[in-house]
């Protein structure tokens, strides 16, 4: 799985998913990201690493935040950036994905950052574009969102200083979450002591325990003694299906409130990939509270994406 993202020397060519990556590779991404964090603080927030390179943001699903941080990351590396929001343009005119890729190839771009509603779409694209193009997965269906996982790992490392001995809980719609899958793989590769998923039975994928997680259906029990809480966004359309009775009931049983924070470790951090649904999965007091590192995640996202762009393009090695 995800094997095509490495070249024949085991270096990162594409960044399609966390599953199957080596621990030292994840650590070197975090290391490179750390060196980029300072770029943010400079008066001129730019380094010339990707000068002359063109990064294309290909978003087949609407997104503002993720696309913006990718754009910012590319610009801080001095790359040129093109944005395509495709849900509204070409595919509705009947152009196939392959045709679109051929057109973009003809423009001699270097990296495609892709978000698509179909799992495996990034693998499909990586297999069908010219070998000179690098693909970065910005979320493929329910499969993976690996840059989000890396910025989550960066934030955890920043706050906790280590991965071992940590207990991490992921709470919410695990079934439909690419963030959850990527986080689970990353946490497991980096060797935390325990990964928990907390969700109602309707929002858990089949056999999730085989990914090496402990499954909890009860929020308070699941949160007891954890060091890190990763909340997931609950999409509005889930409430309109038979998966859940109402947003009200979901918040009552799975919403992260001040009261719930009592059971977790006093130094625990609260994370969320955003955009948050206040009063659905997280109470405002918690989202804005002192343990929340949600905005720190956003900031870290830029440096982490810079690192992944530079590494897949080969301008920075893994050493």
């Amino acid at each position, binding site marked *: *799985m995800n*094997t*095509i993202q490495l070249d024949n020397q085991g270096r990162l060519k594409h960044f399609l998913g966390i*599953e199957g990556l080596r621990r030292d590779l994840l650590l070197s991404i975090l290391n490179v990201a750390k060196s980029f964090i300072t770029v943010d603080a400079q008066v001129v927030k730019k380094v010339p690493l990707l000068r002359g390179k063109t990064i294309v943001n290909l978003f087949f699903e609407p997104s503002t935040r993720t696309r913006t941080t990718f754009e910012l990351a590319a610009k801080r590396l001095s790359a040129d950036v093109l944005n395509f929001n495709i849900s509204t343009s070409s595919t509705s005119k009947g152009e*196939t*994905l*392959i045709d679109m890729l051929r057109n973009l190839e003809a423009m001699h771009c270097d990296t495609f950052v892709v978000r*698509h509603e*179909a*799992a*495996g*779409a990034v*693998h*499909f694209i990586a297999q*069908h574009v010219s070998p000179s193009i690098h693909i970065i997965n910005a979320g*493929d*269906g*329910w*499969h*993976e969102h690996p840059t989000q996982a890396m910025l989550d790992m960066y934030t955890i490392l920043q706050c906790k200083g280590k991965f071992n001995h940590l207990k991490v809980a992921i709470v919410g719609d695990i079934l439909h979450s*690419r963030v959850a*899958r990527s986080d689970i793989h990353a946490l497991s590769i980096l060797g935390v002591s325990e990964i928990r998923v907390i969700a109602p039975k309707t929002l858990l*994928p*089949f*056999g*999730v325990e*085989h*990914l090496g997680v402990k499954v909890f259906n009860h929020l308070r029990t699941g949160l007891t003694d954890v060091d890190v809480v990763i909340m997931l966004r609950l999409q509005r359309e889930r409430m309109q299906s038979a998966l859940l009775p109402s947003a009200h009931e979901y918040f009552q049983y799975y919403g992260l409130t001040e009261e719930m924070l009592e059971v977790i470790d006093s130094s625990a951090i609260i994370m969320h990939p955003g955009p948050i649904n206040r009063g659905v999965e997280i109470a405002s007091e918690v989202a804005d509270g002192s343990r929340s590192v949600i905005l720190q995640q956003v900031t870290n996202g830029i440096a982490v994406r810079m690192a992944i762009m530079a590494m897949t393009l080969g301008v920075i090695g893994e050493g």
Partner: protein
Amino acid sequence: MATSLSIVGGRVIDPATRLDTLTDLHIANGKLVAIGSPPPNFAAEWQIEAKGQIVCPGLVDLSVRLREPGAEHKGTILSETRAAANSGITTLCCPPDTLPVIDTPAVAELLQQRANNAGMTKVLPIAALTQGLRGEQLAEMGDLKEAGCIAVSNVQPIVNTEVLRYALAYAANCNLTVFLHPQDPWLGRRGCAHEGFISTRLGLAGIPEATESIEVARNLLLIELTGVRAHFCRLSTARALTLIKTAQANGLPVTADVSAHHLYFTEHNLTEYNSQYHVIPPFRTLEDRQALRTSLIDGNLQAICSDHQPHEADAKLSPFATTAPGISAVDSLLPLVLQLANELSCDLLTALSWVTLQPARILGIPAGALTIGNPADICIFNPDLHWTLTKENIHSLGANSPFLGWKLKGHVTHTLINGRVVYSYCEPKKTLTDSLSNLAE
């Protein structure tokens, strides 16, 4: 073309009479006239030398999408009946989900007429159970039967249980066999892969195992209620097989088939999102595949079909879930059955019966056997010929097969339909490179 011919020196296998011996077949005026010595006054105008080859009844395939009418860019009656004939298939059933649907005698007749004109594999249309396959109003089953339809099917599930009950009862009234595709109309309807740990890892929407067993259970209860003769198509799960085994033991008139590819692949083949493995029902677990294989040996599954579904290249050229499901499968049917016989240590009489005698019995037709006086529909193949299925040598218009690149053993050398040779294999001319590489070996 000769009106009388003999096939001499071959190993003749006929599952119907359990014949497996070196002998000759004699054919006159399109019919098989003798096995062994020729009848008195018989003079063969032509002779097929079948030494080292196996001579068996032509294959009967319970499901081949011809794509005509309605999707001729995927396949035509001519292209697909020719591909079938070249693969040793002499009779095939065409499901009713053409465009327009086979729900009027006109469409059924058009199909048969064009198939006749093509002069290749014989085509038996399966009629729609309900008009437009919509599951609401019954199709004119009586008329459709008179127009040559061999069975009735709705392909997709009938949601309304009352409609299903009356459709089955009316089919029984017409003495038609109902072909059922057991999939619950709701459970897993958005899915594209077996719901299991693999679909969880890949983030693909799942089709639970229960999708099939629930529908089999619902159908079995209504089969009992209506007394219809029913055939379950393309089973994929162990539990559905258990239900059917019990029903058969209780004397219900039910049969079942499996596609050749479900006997080979499992959910594990999906891990690289290769859309050639996108099929409905999905490839399931290793245990399910084992149960399918065991059920063939035990006789609870009677037949193997190709479940041929040719597609144009573009239909498979997009992310997994968005591709059209199905495999172009007639070309690989016979070699896969032969390989299966080998893997299961099963004799050829039994293995060939799954694609000849048994499907013919399900259809209630006098095919799939070497019967004196019946039309000479015969397949001759070289069991030892190794070959590789490629985009270039696949006969179907659709090259959508996960078996491309597979080294297969066993190749059809002649296909006879009504005593007429419709296919004879010429070994590809060896190129200089081939000869050199042979020398090197």
